[in-house]
């Protein structure tokens, strides 16, 4: 992640301003390969290392949940320039201030758990 600069706030800004192909190239390559991998695993009913079938659980259909939740996520993603994975890569990179965002993310997760029954899903 860090070697392709996907953990950089600048790269996320560039993505949301549609000013470079870079981030779209990263996500696009991963998705195209991911679709092929998933298709092949399903088609040939491939198994994992213990011999169990690899199962893809379909996501439960809903509209508000994904749209509202996704939008809130996006608001924060553009602001901090980091989604959850890159937050932790940034710790390794010794950008210590990202720890504030990590604390925020854990608090946000906790609040969701606490009020989830009252939110539209």
């Amino acid at each position: 992640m860090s070697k392709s600069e996907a953990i950089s706030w600048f790269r996320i800004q560039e993505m949301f301003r549609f000013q470079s192909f870079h981030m779209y190239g990263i996500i696009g390559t991963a998705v195209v390969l991911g679709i092929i991998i998933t298709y092949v695993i399903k088609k040939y009913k491939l198994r994992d290392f213990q011999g169990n079938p690899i199962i893809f659980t379909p996501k439960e259909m809903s509209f508000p949940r994904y749209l509202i939740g996704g939008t809130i996520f996006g608001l924060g993603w553009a602001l901090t320039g980091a989604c959850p994975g890159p937050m932790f890569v940034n710790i390794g990179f010794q950008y210590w201030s990202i720890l504030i965002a990590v604390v925020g993310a854990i608090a946000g997760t906790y609040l969701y758990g606490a009020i989830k029954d009252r939110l539209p899903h």
Partner: protein
Amino acid sequence: MLEFLSQPWPWYTSGIVIALVMLVLLFFGKSFGFSSNLRTICSACGAGKTVKFFDFDWRSQTWNLLFLVGAIIGGFIASEFLSNGEAVQISQATIQDLSALGISAPDGMQPEEIFSLESAFSLKGFLILLLGGFAVGFGARYAGGCTSGHAISGISNLQLPSLIAVIGFFIGGLFTTWVLMPLIF
């Protein structure tokens, strides 16, 4: 070799590596989704006693926590041994847009105006990081996944919910970029 490794890598290498990470996790009977770790951390800190959502056997998720530790170690190795210390090569258009907001051109990976310790402990910088992180954590759990779970794993499995979530990621991201940021900076 080291010189080659020290340069920024092109986008397709990262895309391939991300897909391989997903493949390896599937092979080991797991799935690729990073933000679940935030729920696991809440649970490991004892949140299950007060909130039912966190009342599960978090130890079963140890593998994903190890993945998290790996992400930190990977960042450390990249910064200590495989970095040439050059600024991120973003487009000229982005540099111009950001300088209009008062954010100077990249000097490293992250903008000084937000990430330097001085900025991070100013009220504005602190709130940007805290509230931004809060929205990421809250939104990821609400939507049931983040970039890895939805944009990569979900769309790879052609899941409509994941596509809706990714559209949401962009609605939120574009709103922050084009509406909120000119107000904040």
